[in-house]
């Protein structure tokens, strides 16, 4: 068993390796393996696994990649992540990736799939249209067909047959993966000092670039360590971070929020790894339909899923309550339409419900957080000072 600090360092290395070294090594280890890159938010990684491919998350270049060519592709009023993804692509970071999946999350990611096609990057490009119809016979069938297309692309490379057994095995592995991540969040909810948010971030993100079997081993050890009563409690308020599901804030910002007096007890930073709530049936004779229904019935609320029958503001309010959080931090990537268009829905509802919040915007490449840190500090102080007063604070930083 490795020490917790060793595990965290390992995850940190993996999480921000923009050369995707482990994925490439894995592919080299055996002929007939493939790598499929996927964009945020969510991709049913089980299907890639069953098809003999390694799904690798592409979160952009963050504050670790200088943009030289990417800016020529996007106007100033478009978020930052597509330009850093283009930069990574043009600089050859995705060499040895076989194909790319662009989940339907917003018009920017959708149109980025067209740019990848135009630039002939990868041997296949698939825009994965998530169903916005939630009945089994309509949306369920459509989503299953979407997954079949991806399996077809992958198996034409890996030459592997995707059986129900193989899919069930993959579903089982990812169920375990999510269970352990959930366990970490459960511990964070009650004992957030045992593992800080920055470390949780590394641990979860590492799992998006390595085989699930390896990540599960890492997680098992992390879970073992954090069962112990380690760390020292600090006088901080508990918050939930919402809105940062695609373009990722730089780690410095994730850290700054906690340093400014908050324990982040839930977040949507890497929503894809935690998108499905609970397990997906791993014994089905129709595992693709099981995955499809998993998405339709068990998804976390998200800005890219039509929510009218299950309004997101109540779902987030429930998370706040269940986690025992004192407030919410709405963190949106600058110019992120889905996140910013949801903001009034959340904020108007929270004003009525008396849930405290602040809101700010960030960009993945900005690593100056003084102002945000001050705002978060003021927010946490206000919660501590007026514990009994329902209050809302809104601060917008750009």
């Amino acid at each position, binding site marked *: 068993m490795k020490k917790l600090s060793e595990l965290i360092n390992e995850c940190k290395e993996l999480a921000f390796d923009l050369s995707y070294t482990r994925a490439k090594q894995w592919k080299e280890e055996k002929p007939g393996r493939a790598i499929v890159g996927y964009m945020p938010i969510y991709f049913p990684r089980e299907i890639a696994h069953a098809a003999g491919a390694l799904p690798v998350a592409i979160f952009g270049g963050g504050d670790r990649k200088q943009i030289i060519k990417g800016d020529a592709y996007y106007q100033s009023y478009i978020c930052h992540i597509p330009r850093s993804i283009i930069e990574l692509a043009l600089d050859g970071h995705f060499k040895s990736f076989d194909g790319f999946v662009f989940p339907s999350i917003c018009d920017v990611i959708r*149109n980025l799939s067209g740019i990848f096609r135009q630039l002939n990057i990868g041997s296949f490009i698939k825009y994965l249209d998530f169903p916005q119809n939630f009945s089994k016979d*309509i949306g369920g069938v459509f989503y299953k067909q979407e997954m079949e297309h991806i399996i077809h692309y992958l198996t034409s490379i890996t030459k592997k047959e995707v059986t129900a057994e193989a899919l069930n095995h993959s579903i089982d592995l990812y169920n375990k993966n999510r269970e352990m991540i959930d366990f970490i969040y459960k511990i964070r909810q009650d004992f957030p000092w045992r593992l800080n948010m920055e470390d949780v971030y590394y641990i979860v993100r590492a799992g998006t670039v390595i085989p699930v079997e390896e990540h599960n081993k890492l997680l098992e050890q992390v879970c073992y360590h954090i069962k112990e009563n380690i760390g020292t409690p600090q006088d901080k308020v508990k918050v939930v971070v919402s809105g940062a599901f695609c373009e990722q804030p730089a780690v410095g910002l994730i850290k700054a929020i906690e340093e400014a007096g908050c324990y982040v007890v839930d977040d949507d930073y890497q929503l894809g790894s935690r998108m499905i709530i609970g397990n997906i049936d791993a014994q089905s004779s129709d595992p693709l339909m099981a995955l499809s229904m998993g998405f339709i019935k068990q998804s976390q609320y998200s800005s890219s899923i039509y929510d009218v029958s299950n309004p997101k503001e109540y779902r987030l309010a429930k998370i706040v309550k269940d986690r025992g959080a004192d407030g919410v931090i709405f963190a949106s990537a600058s110019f992120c339409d889905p996140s910013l268009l949801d903001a*009034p829905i959340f904020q108007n509802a929270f004003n009525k419900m008396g849930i405290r919040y602040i809101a700010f915007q960030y960009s993945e490449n900005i690593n100056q957080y003084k102002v945000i840190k001050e705002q978060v500090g003021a927010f946490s102080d206000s919660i501590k000072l007026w514990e009994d007063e329902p209050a809302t604070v809104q601060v917008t930083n750009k």
Partner: protein
Amino acid sequence: MAQEAQKEKSMVLQKEMVEGLFDALSKVSETGKKVCYTFVPGNLSELIRTFDMLPVYPEINALQSAMRKKSASYIKEAEKHAHSEDVCTYVKCDVGMLMKGNIGPTGQKLPEPDILLLSYTGCFTFMKWFETLKREYPNAKVIMLHTPYQENAKMTPEMVQYMAKQLRDEVIPVMEEVSGVKYDENKLKKILGYSKEAGDWIAKIFDTTKHKPSPIDAYFAGVYYIGPINIGFRGTPEAVEYYKELYSEIMQRVEKGLGPITPEGEMKEEKYRLVVEGPPNWTNFREFWKLFYDMGAVIVASSYTKVGGVYDMGWRHDASRPLETLAEYCMNCYTNLNLPQRIELLSKCIKDYKADGYITNSIKSCNSFSAGQLAMMREIEDRMEVPVGFIESDLVDPRYFSYSNIKNRLESYFQMLGQRKMMENQEV
């Protein structure tokens, strides 16, 4: 370009249609007609009409508000209520208008929706917009019709079936319930027959720009021409009559060798023929247009006139497959095409209409159009070897219309076009 243009018969017909619609909307409390809010791309006018409902198009209200100089205050109102400065201004204009009493373009109060029909075609913001409206109108029924994206440049049978099933099992039953009208497929088929005819005429009309001089401006005037098919009249004999009349007026211009009509009368000399990508600016629409016609530039094709349906690649409504044809119609709207398809389509326009140049009007509001426009522009420049130009503005937020910036950019662009033409002439 001296006198104000005379009203052509087609203009009168269009005016009658639009006024009739708003008049009917103002009387729903008396007539009991049900109201369906929906969007232009993927608009199911034929189905709405089958159930005798009246459509309201929030985008049209927003652009009309901008033309009446009301959008700035509406946007401000929405921003006071946590709407970000950086999102689609159509949404904010609509929300602001609602907050300020929902007075429509004709000065009459718009009725509340009985149905919010989210034809989710080619734009994610639509979804957010109706999620927002649903919270404002809790009693309205919401229908989500998910239109799959043509990611692989195809409308596959499974995509068509997915949509047809949604229409059959979810859209139609709600429409029946709300309107109290039973679904009548024969009625829908009849309406679709007129839609096909309207599609034929609109394709012919936009094809007249192949003449030199072009008899119409396919962007600035084009946005008026697409009015009837986009705001609920597709599928009516009135629309067919309008388009027939418009076509005959245009052909008369062709016979006389006349250029387009502008707000200041007839454009005299056609110097440059352009294809434009991106929506227009509405807050300063006339000034914007003037920047082009003053320079002798006419737009021979534009992507924006295809947002409510692409008819120039041969697709038409087919009454024999009513639900399937509605599905295909939705999937075939411009912003539901992938980027290579858009490039293909615009390249074809440049070729067919012998354009001298290609201009991108990049709209801050609209990622559905804007994200990827620069890559498209580069590809078109390489492929078609035409000079490309780039300007930035916004739909309905006057803060993002900088007259001098646009003018400077256009002037340099036209200078470049002029030099190029001169060189080409010398070579000849």
